[in-house]
């Protein structure tokens, strides 16, 4: 399971309009003092707008400046939205590289951005397009309070139980927007002989909620853990990598050690292929050149990079043109962890178009994905741009290779 090297409880201290708590001043100074700004060229937003204000260095420096009487929290209403929360800057920061383990002082920009967004809300300042984020939250929370049967409609005809030692946790995005991802996951697990269930009434797992209402996020986290325990879960399979970060980093930070194992679906399928439970004999072989897009949350935040690649290599008939996970630190689909696309649709589109072009540049005809948000975003970008690369979820390829369609 992913470990967070640097957990900073002092992020719980509020930044006021014109004052910054001392531990946060020091935290920001540690980035400002580096001054080498390796966080810059790796940032997908910076690659697009070339504005150093929208980098980890810029963000930490802004807060340090506020602590020195220059500007106020109100000034960051725009700046705080120009972050995909992808984590590239954290990995590229010399503090993380050289001070992460020994000093427990990794740079934690994503947590800080979320924290400042919450502080802006708490100070009744809000941030640019805050209302649009509230609309997103309201939409998804309405699923929680709406008809219970809607939450599992994606699984119609699959005859899945609501209990089990293994639970396939399906978030609202997969349950309502990218249902084929959830159905493919379920079909593959069933065909491999895995005994599992699903939750009848899962709670919300929203990055937007983490950004503006921590109490509500934790309330849903506690609810989800209780539901999973009640359902008998000893192992929970996630199919949204954003959820994987919440379960492994945020749930554990706010609720302590979880009473069950949390695994990502690609790790599970990789195990099933290795054990022989999944085979690709008999079905029509696949074909063509494919590359793989590392979802930011899996690659940059959780370090899951190998299982999707092993799965792709095991699929018959494909020519896999790989781009290393480190080279992909500077890539993103453009959608972000918390409605970046809602906040900055044009930037989001250009980042996505750049990603598809990078895939085309290595000769890929299809770009394999392991995240429903990436699939949703890049499918949209392809439709708008006419890019010659087709985005496709790895579960769709596995299901196809198994002859499950």
């Amino acid at each position, binding site marked *: 399971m992913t470990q967070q090297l640097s957990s900073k409880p002092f992020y719980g201290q509020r930044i006021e309009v014109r004052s910054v708590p001392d531990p946060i*001043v*020091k935290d920001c*100074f*540690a980035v400002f*003092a*580096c*001054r*080498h*700004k*390796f966080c*810059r*060229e790796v940032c997908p937003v910076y690659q697009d707008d*070339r*504005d*150093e*204000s929208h980098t980890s*260095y*810029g963000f930490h*420096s*802004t807060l*340090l*400046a506020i602590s*020195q*009487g*220059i*500007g*106020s929290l109100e*000034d*960051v209403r725009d*700046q705080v939205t120009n972050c995909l929360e992808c984590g590239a800057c954290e990995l*590229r920061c*010399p*503090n993380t*590289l*050289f*001070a992460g*383990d*020994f*000093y427990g*002082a990794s740079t934690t920009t994503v947590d800080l951005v979320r924290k400042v967004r919450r502080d802006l809300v708490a100070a009744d300042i809000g941030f640019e397009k805050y209302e649009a984020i509230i609309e997103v939250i309201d939409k998804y929370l309405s699923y929680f309070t709406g008809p219970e049967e809607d939450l599992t409609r994606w699984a119609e005809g699959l005859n899945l139980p609501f209990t089990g030692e293994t639970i396939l946790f399906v978030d609202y995005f997969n349950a309502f927007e990218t249902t084929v991802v959830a159905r493919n996951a379920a079909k593959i697990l069933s065909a491999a002989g895995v005994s599992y269930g699903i939750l009848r009434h899962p709670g919300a797992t929203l990055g937007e909620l983490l950004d503006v209402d921590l109490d509500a996020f934790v309330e849903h986290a506690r609810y989800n853990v209780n539901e999973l325990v009640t359902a008998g879960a000893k192992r929970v399979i996630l199919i949204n990598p954003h959820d994987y970060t919440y379960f492994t980093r945020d749930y554990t930070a706010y609720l302590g050690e979880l009473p069950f194992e949390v695994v990502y679906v690609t790790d599970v399928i990789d195990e099933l292929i290795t054990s022989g439970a999944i085979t690709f004999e008999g079905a029509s072989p696949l074909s063509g050149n494919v590359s793989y897009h590392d979802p930011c949350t899996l690659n940059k935040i959780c370090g899951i990079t190998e299982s999707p690649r092993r799965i792709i290599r095991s699929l018959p008939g494909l020519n896999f043109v790989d781009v290393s996970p480190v080279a992909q630190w500077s890539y993103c689909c453009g959608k972000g962890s918390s409605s970046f696309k809602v906040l900055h649709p044009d930037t989001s589109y250009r980042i996505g178009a750049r990603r598809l072009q990078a895939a085309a540049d290595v000769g890929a005809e299809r770009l394999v994905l392991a995240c429903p948000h990436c699939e949703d975003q890049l499918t949209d970008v392809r439709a708008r741009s006419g890019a010659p690369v087709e985005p496709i979820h790895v579960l769709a390829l596995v299901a196809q290779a198994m002859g499950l369609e």
Partner: protein
Amino acid sequence: MTTTAVHAGLEGAIADLRQSIGSEFVLTEPYHRAIRSSSAAPFGVHLWQDTLPDLVVRPGSTADVIEIVRIANRWKVPIVPRGAGAGLADGAMPLRRGIVVDIKRMHDVLEIDDDNMTVTVQPGINMMELNKILRPLNVWFPDDPASYPVNVLGGRVGTGGWSLVGAGYGHIPNNVVSMEVVTPTGEVIRVGEGGARKIRKASTGYRMKELFIGHQGTLGIVTELTLDLSPRPEVEFPAFFAVRDWRDSWRLTQTLGKSGLKTISGIFQFDERKVDFLRRDDEAWIPLPDWVQGATGVICYGREAEVNAAKPIIFDLAKEAGATYLGQEMSEGDWASRHDRYHLAYHGRSGGKIKLMAWSIDDCAVQWSELPAVKKRWYEIADALVAKHPEHFDVWGMFMYTNNPFRPWGDHLTELDMGINELEMTPEIWADWIEAKTEIARTAVRHGGSVSACHGGTREGEVNVSCYEELAEGQFELMKKLKRLLDPENIMNPGKYNLDEAYEGDAR
């Protein structure tokens, strides 16, 4: 020193800039200005208000830059060009407020001519990103400073940068073929070897290109660069050797430098206190036994056959010097981490405890023969400062790198690293720091060296030594005449290099 300048024409300039460049690229919010009020040099956090620019403008084209310069002249508001802000001489730090011109939007590759081995780019492109684009052609732009992952070429030219592999491939001044520059009065000129864009050696006219390299933004803004490409090296071979006494490292450096091996692209020394520092808390450094009191690193680039031929000669020379090879893992690991080996705030110590400190370096150019004497005096100065202010300063040891372009002998970029506690700085302690910086710079000059090998001699504490001691034989006087000739309104980065003196007596 900075002064709190007030510019009467500021509002008019902002209005004109918004009209000409577009409001979204004219930034007046405090955070945009605060972020661009420092470079990478030690920064008095307590003095932050003094270096805040009035606004930031982000041009997207040469035409934008021309317009900005003309508006600045019209309203008599100063301009401070800014590249990556990675310079260690405060070149991009505004001393008279005004307009910071952030060039990073201008980052296109305009032409790759691999027949004639040139690439033409805009000034805001980063070298690492450029080399990613060049890689499929099996060529590279061999500029490799420690700031390689972040620096941009406009800033490299503005500071006259140095490269880790300059002993093999030359430094920035050697690898810029020609440039388009917007002058302080808004004219566009091309400077090169003669007037041609892609000619490396010509005897036509004055050698004007040199004037527009290393001027710290006082003479114009580069808007296009034609650069000299090199074939990508087939192999790279780093080898690091430990010694029992730093003087053995010093001597080995000269032996290797004079060996005649053309594949040697750089040689580096770590002194005994640098080894101690790295041993103390740098996780990239594999722990070394106590007997190690210095190290020499050498990097070879080239075709596999020539590098393989050089290896046994290098090992023999090192063995004769009594040096011990540190092994492939450490050699390759250290070379691979060369860009990341920055000294973190967490590396600061006071009384054995962590004290957050920013990194400061002195980057003087010193002749090989003078290194022991300069080293001894520098440590006396630094140790005295730490003894007086143990909570505010820490000595982090010295590196010495080959400095001569295309030749690994002669002078060395000599780097004294220190930690400085900027967050708890006071005016009195800052004054002591400046005094120590002055003495360090003066020591280099008195030993026949230069205040700066790569970043510029413009920092507070060093600038007077640069202008009045190192450049005393008429150069500073000529600089002032040129400045006044090219920049009659003192628009470009006023205050830098004491060039305000060129305008003394003017009614302004």
